[in-house]
């Protein structure tokens, strides 16, 4: 089955096309097709995962030549190793649950069929990216993911905000893609290949200097910054909440934002060569985590809180990558995929029940939506990083790695963000489920969601509980993801072992801050020990800054969008006035004038000459034809007269002589 791994990629795209073109002939408009294909993909992926997990260091690479020019060969590759096997399971699992969940969530949507086609297409794009064995294929998957996210975020394009959010996501990530593309070109021109293995081999042979490797790595990372919503290109993710909630779950958990982290993990050999690139990754991750967490503190839109939380958690993952622990980053990606999908699907369940996004109007929903409440609580527990949930293991691994690599400032940020995470997630939880209902109308109409929505929640809740334990004890994630180590990473690992801090220090610290965060949230929102309003009053500027999301959007608007707009308008005017009117139209006018002159010359002079000769000939002819009477006697007369004239000339006779001659008679 490993040899036929390509079916995992082919099934979703086949399903997508069939749903798109023939979905209306199916009883459930093609949704069953999407679910079935995704189910197949999950089973196949689990099988592959099982094989890989049972055999550490397992690698299988299947490739089909796509096209070649010269010595360069482009392939469609299916690279199966620990990293891609893990991602395959995460992607197909979350996607399957989202497919099932959407049955109810999107039931009444007029474009239900199209939604499923897009979902399958989205998954296909992500899977192409995951199994890629070369940079070109990963880039293709990368762009397809971008396209799919554009289609899905702007799915309700009747709403201007949704259409704009789609565009914003597409354009912002495209800014990052530019870096990726330049990196791609650099790798190709400097190393002559795009295959991961070959690039890794050539880099380790020092075919390029560490500086160049670092620049390439940073350009790749710039692509990941766009896709994984790191500062400063994070602005699209909160707006992406305009899409249907299942899509948000998919984007935030399995596809799209995971792509950036996956790219860094996949091309980690480049980063390892250049410490300064790793440093940049670490600091970007840390700053992103901090900024996003603080923005989440004041957000009032249910999904936006979760979006900021995603950005923050992605920052964690990048931080882990940056401090040299790729495994921790991927571990957190996996666990985060489960509990963030859970959070979003639970959020969707709440929104489905209340038709409201503003958490200030909710409250008390725990009595109405028991299962949603319980599963959300599990997710809260997990994301806060409390034992024994998934987030505990993965987040601690990141913090440990940060501490052991002597990034003390980043470690401080990490711990603080853990505290903030616990706080704002608990705030969200309390405001939605626990506190007294603030809007009776919404409260009274709320109801538990149908089974097809609750079931995915439960599955994800189980995963949120156990995935950390599983990867810690049953299938050690280090073993799963460990590739043949390069010299640097081996040294780094060696260094990491010699940490001076006691093993229990980090877990203890993170548990304390998480518990502190949760407790503080309780003090703010349940027991009115502190008042959020009064705190906001007191620190008005800070509050405003956070609500304004640090002004990134305004900054981009004022310094990028507006000037570009103005420049474009100016250039358009220039284009119209100078190029169109003066250049094109002017030339046309000149040409026309010149042609008219030419035509006149042609008509009057050239044609006139021709006609003149014709007329002359005709006139000559009409005179000459007078003598051509056709009567033979006429001709004879001319002949006789002519002869007589010749005779006269021969004899030198003058007219007088002739007259004299006649006189003689």
């Amino acid at each position: 089955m490993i040899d036929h791994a390509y079916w995992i990629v082919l099934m979703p795209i086949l399903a997508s096309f069939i749903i798109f073109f023939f979905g209306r002939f199916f009883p459930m408009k093609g949704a069953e097709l999407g679910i079935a294909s995704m189910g197949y993909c999950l089973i196949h992926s689990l099988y592959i995962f099982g094989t890989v997990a049972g055999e550490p260091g397992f690698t299988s690479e299947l490739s089909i030549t796509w096209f070649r020019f010269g010595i360069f060969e482009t392939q469609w590759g299916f690279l199966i190793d620990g990293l891609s096997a893990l991602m395959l399971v995460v992607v197909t699992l979350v996607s399957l649950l989202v497919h099932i969940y959407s049955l109810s969530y999107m039931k009444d949507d007029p474009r239900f069929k199209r939604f499923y086609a897009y979902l399958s297409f989205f998954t296909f794009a992500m899977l192409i990216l995951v199994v890629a064995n070369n940079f070109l294929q990963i880039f293709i998957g990368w762009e397809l993911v971008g396209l799919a996210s554009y289609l899905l975020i702007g799915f309700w394009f009747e709403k201007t905000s949704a259409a704009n959010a789609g565009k914003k996501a597409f354009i912002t990530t495209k800014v990052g893609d530019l870096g990726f593309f330049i990196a791609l070109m650099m790798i190709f021109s400097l190393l002559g290949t795009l295959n991961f293995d070959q690039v890794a081999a050539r880099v380790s042979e020092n075919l390029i200097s560490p500086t160049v490797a670092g620049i390439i790595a940073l350009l790749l990372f710039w692509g990941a910054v766009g896709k994984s919503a790191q500062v400063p290109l994070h602005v699209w993710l909160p707006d992406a909440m305009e899409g249907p909630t299942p899509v948000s779950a998919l984007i935030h958990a399995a596809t799209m934002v995971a792509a950036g982290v996956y790219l860094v993990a996949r091309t980690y050999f480049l980063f390892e060569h250049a410490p300064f690139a790793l440093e940049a990754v670490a600091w970007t991750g840390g700053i992103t985590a901090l900024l996003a967490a603080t923005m989440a503190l004041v957000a009032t839109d249910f999904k936006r809180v979760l979006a900021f939380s995603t950005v923050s958690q992605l920052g964690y993952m990048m931080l882990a990558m940056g401090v040299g622990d790729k495994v921790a980053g991927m571990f957190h990606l996996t666990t985060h995929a489960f509990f963030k999908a859970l959070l979003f699907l639970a959020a969707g369940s709440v929104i489905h029940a209340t038709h409201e996004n503003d958490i200030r109007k909710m409250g008390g929903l725990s009595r109405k939506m028991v299962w949603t409440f319980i599963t959300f609580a599990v997710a809260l527990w997990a994301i806060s990083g409390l034992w024994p949930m998934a987030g505990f293991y993965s987040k601690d691994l990141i913090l440990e790695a940060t501490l052991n690599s002597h990034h003390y400032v980043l470690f401080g940020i990490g711990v603080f963000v853990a505290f903030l995470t616990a706080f704002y997630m608990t705030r969200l939880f309390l405001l939605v489920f626990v506190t007294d209902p603030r809007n009776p109308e919404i409260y009274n109409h709320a109801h538990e969601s149908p089974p097809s929505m609750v079931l995915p929640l439960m599955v994800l809740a189980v995963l949120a509980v156990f995935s950390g334990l599983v990867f810690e004890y049953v299938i050690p994630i280090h073993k799963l993801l460990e590739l043949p180590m390069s010299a640097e990473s081996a040294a780094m690992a060696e260094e990491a072992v010699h940490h001076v801090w006691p093993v229990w220090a980090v877990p203890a610290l993170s548990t304390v801050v998480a518990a502190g965060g949760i407790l503080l949230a309780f003090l703010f929102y349940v027991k009115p020990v502190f008042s959020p309003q009064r705190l906001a009053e007191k620190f008005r500027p800070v509050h405003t800054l956070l609500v304004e999301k640090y002004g990134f959007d305004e900054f981009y608007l004022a310094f990028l969008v507006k000037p570009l707009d103005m420049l474009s308008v100016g250039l358009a005017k220039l284009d119209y006035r100078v190029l169109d009117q003066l250049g094109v139209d002017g030339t046309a006018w000149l040409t026309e004038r010149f042609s008219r002159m030419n035509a006149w010359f042609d008509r009057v002079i050239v044609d006139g000459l021709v006609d003149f000769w014709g007329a002359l000939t005709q006139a000559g002819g009409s005179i000459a034809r007078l003598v051509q009477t056709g009567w033979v006697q006429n001709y004879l007369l001319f002949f006789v007269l002519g002869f007589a004239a010749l005779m006269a000339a021969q004899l030198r006779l003058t007219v007088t002589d002739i007259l004299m001659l006649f006189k003689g008679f």
Partner: protein
Amino acid sequence: MAETVTTCAVGLQHYLALGSILFAIGIFGVLTRRNIIGILMSVELMFNAANINLVAFNRFVHGGDLWGQGFAIFVITLAAAEAVVGLALVLAIYRTMKTTYVEKMNLLKG
């Protein structure tokens, strides 16, 4: 001798005058006859005018040998041949155009 010549004998000038008159009649006939047969006949007149000249010059100017007379006989022979060819043509023309009047024959008119 000279008196006799001047008084009664017919001289060279008389012959030449006769030739000229015959020739002129011939030309006049060729130019004015409408019937092609008449034109042919007029051409015969012109031949004979030439013959009279030839014979007269031989008698008065050359003397002795009979070159002029011989030449005239050749001309008569040729005239006979010419008449044959001419009449044959007239016949052919008549068969195709059903006429012998030359003014009807203007196919070459420009």
